[in-house]
């Protein structure tokens, strides 16, 4: 069966599709309200392809021209993507075709599915990863375009629908928690983020949280590896 990887990938992406439809459409709508038509919306969604950065980008596109600042802001907002790369080095190893596309499309949601889903033996991992990445990429672009094109899009009440992505990450977090005997890493992630959020506030906590996470993981390396050895 040629399409079994697609069949395996599609159901996993349905929550992402729901969340993207809402957030992407809201982005397209926001762009339109700032005078950007479907052309720019499509180009930006297809090339930048990073939800929170695109929202931050609206501000960059409507204030004074400052390309260096735009680059720095992008590096800060998207720095977490490097963590996904480090985590996927092993899993994306040996994939020849389309590896560049997999890396290009390594957003929060795609990473979450591709890292945590246990693949059946008879499924080609490269094709599976590709379909997850490609589907999520397509949902996002289509949603952004829809939001830009359709007038009076939000006459129906979608308030709170964006919570679907929060629920999506929470469920993956629980699944990972259950699958692991040692919860040190998960707790480090939670606590570093909460502590930095309280200290630095919601607009400045990402980089400190990332640094604290790396530092804590290295600090607790002997402890984590000790428990892992005992499990084996």
């Amino acid at each position, binding site marked *: 069966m040629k399409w079994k990887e697609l069949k395996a990938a599609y159901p996993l992406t349905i929550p992402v599709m729901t969340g993207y439809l809402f957030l992407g459409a809201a982005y397209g709508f926001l762009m339109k309200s700032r005078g950007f038509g479907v052309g720019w919306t499509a180009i930006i969604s297809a090339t930048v392809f990073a939800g929170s950065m695109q929202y931050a980008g609206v501000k960059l596109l409507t204030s004074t021209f400052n*390309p260096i600042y735009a680059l720095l802001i992008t590096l800060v907002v*998207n720095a977490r993507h490097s963590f996904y790369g480090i985590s996927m*080095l092993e899993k994306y190893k040996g994939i020849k075709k389309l590896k560049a596309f997999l890396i290009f499309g390594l957003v929060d949601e795609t990473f979450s599915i591709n890292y945590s889903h246990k693949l059946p033996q008879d499924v080609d991992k490269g094709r599976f990863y590709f379909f997850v990445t490609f589907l999520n990429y397509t949902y996002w672009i289509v949603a952004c375009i829809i939001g830009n094109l359709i007038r009076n899009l939000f006459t129906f009440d979608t308030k709170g629908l964006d919570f679907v992505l929060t629920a999506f990450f929470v469920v993956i977090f629980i699944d990972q928690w259950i699958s692991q005997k040692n919860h040190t890493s998960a707790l480090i992630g939670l606590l570093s983020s909460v502590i930095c959020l309280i200290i630095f506030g919601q607009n400045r906590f990402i980089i400190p949280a990332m640094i604290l996470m790396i530092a804590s993981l290295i600090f607790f390396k002997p402890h984590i590896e000790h428990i892992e050895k005992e499990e084996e």
Partner: protein
Amino acid sequence: MPLTPVEVLITVAMMVLGTMITRFLPFLCFPEKKKVPKYITYLGKTLPYAVMGFLVIYCLKGVSIVNKPYGMPELSALIFIFAIHLWKRNTFLSIFGGTIIYMLLSRLVFV
């Protein structure tokens, strides 16, 4: 003063460049043929669990616990998701059930 189309294009190009740096950097630093340093392998194994905790907090960063409704819709929905997921282990039920609970609570109960 709005940006000219060329300035928009340059700004967008910078956003693309920045995003691609963050995504490609690990793969460029550690190509398949090169031996990956032990610390990076260790981080590659432990970071995913830490980063998922981070993503949960990242999604909830805008929730205020000092102003009304004190994060109650989020907290209730999270408790629901934990309970139903541990009970049924059905990803769809947990995600969409939690979302519906959240939407109902934030409109009807904690207005």
